């Protein structure tokens, strides 16, 4: 993964390995370019999962969007991570599978995806107020 640093100077913020899993933290501006490259050149043809994290109200930036790419040929996963406060670019043009996953993140965490073809809620009703998976959203009772 070190070659990502050379290929996209300035795009990679950190690379670390834990429990045998590699995580590449990217600058959010270069996300779609790197994803395109990983799919076309590195064989990560399958998007296993896409999700979001609320790092807490005090954290700057507050949210992380986490991508789990999979290469069917090489049988391995790669985790990408992008930090943001409000929005990142969609990758639904790279993998169609991202469409619903991104809507789910938007619905439950309130991170939106630029240029997404249909950025609407997926689980909660359209007129629902708030984002349930945020850490400051209560488990029960009045909001």
């Amino acid at each position, binding site marked *: 993964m070190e070659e990502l640093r050379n290929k996209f100077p300035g795009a990679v913020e950190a690379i670390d390995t834990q*429990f045998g899993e590699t995580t590449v933290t990217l600058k959010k501006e270069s996300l779609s370019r790197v994803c395109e490259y990983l799919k076309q050149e590195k064989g990560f043809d399958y998007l296993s*999962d896409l999700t979001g994290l609320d790092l807490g109200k005090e954290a700057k930036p507050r949210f992380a969007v*986490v991508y789990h790419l999979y290469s069917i040929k090489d049988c391995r*996963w790669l985790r990408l991570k992008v930090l943001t406060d409000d929005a990142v670019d969609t990758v639904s043009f790279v993998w*169609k599978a991202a469409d619903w996953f991104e809507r789910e993140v938007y619905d439950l965490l309130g991170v939106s995806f630029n240029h997404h073809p249909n950025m609407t809620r997926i*689980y909660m*009703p359209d007129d629902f107020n708030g984002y349930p998976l945020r850490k400051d*959203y209560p488990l029960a009772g009045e909001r």
Partner: protein
Amino acid sequence: MTELDKMLTIDNDSGEGVMTLNMGPQHPSTHGVLRIILKLAGEVVIDAVPVIGYLHRGIEKLMENRTYHQAITLTDRFDYLSPLSNNLAYCLAVEKLLSLEVPPRGQVLRVILAELTRIQSHLIWLGTQANDIGAITPLLYTFREREELLDMFEMAGGSRMHTSYIRIGGLEKDVPPEFMPKVKSFCDTLPTLMKDYEGLLTKNRIWQMRTRGVGVISAEDAINIGLCGPTLRGSGVAHDLRKSNPYCGYENYDFDVPVETAGDVYARYLVRLEEIRQSRYILQQAMDKLPGGPINAPISQVVPPEKERVVGDIESLINQFHIMVEGFKVPAGEVYFALESPRGELGYYIRSDGSEKPYRIKVRTPSFANLQALPALVKGRLMADIVAVIGSIDIVLGDVDK
């Protein structure tokens, strides 16, 4: 210009001749509470928009407020037709965080339970898919056999559907002595039963007309849209996590990954039938190699002591109390673990902050990923085909809606 193109043109120009029809959420063939908004030109589907969330219970949020041990019961509620696969995926993910290894007997028992679950799930799929298309008899057959499998689950874990039997570090308890003979006799009768199912369907002309060439998707599109499990393998992609990223010692079993290239409903039917056979084959190997010994990892901070010891000595009682009430600390970090559930890639992404409760759990449910492909599969087909296609992607709405 074909007949279909003409219809589509009408839609694009003025919207005339297009009917919007609401299907579900209360509809027997949607397998739960799936709602689909259809745009139809006559009987031809121009567009289909699935509307989901009717069964959303916020399980991921609930898990953040439970200890790792308590969260096991919630995993049953995702895919309620294969609860043991859910338990297993969650426990293996947590075990990865804990860097914990389950003893050989526990591993083999887990494989046995996972494969029984696969057979059980595929039997329900077979019965309901056939029933949706109009063949009622297979449903009666497959539910008869499913009952036997549920009896086995009850025998082992005490519960038929929401088992919570697989625990972090192993299993709740060892299986009773009468369990293995029951599995064995089931495996012995299965080929005869399979002949019954296939005799009713495989060469049945109506069945073939309703399933062949319906809901076709190419391998490339299937990968791009995130299809998984038997639905992906029906399109000619030989991808099975039991082979590609083995867990629980699957690399020590000899089995094939069935693949069909047609990519239609019939291909998925053939794949799942063959998977039942392969599962039986794995079960037989597992029963042969089942070793003795402990089923749980010897980590007293994580695995509760046996019941006899809990009522016998005070140390074990206190230990049990700590695990059940306070939970145990899990090292900080994040893991993604996925296994091959009957429906496809079931993945758990767990982020731990080092406390007793998970900071965030995201479940990558196979039904959610598969349902996303529905519009692509039904566009341009007849309305009646929707029912066949929904059956063939084998969704469980609890799994879709979380």
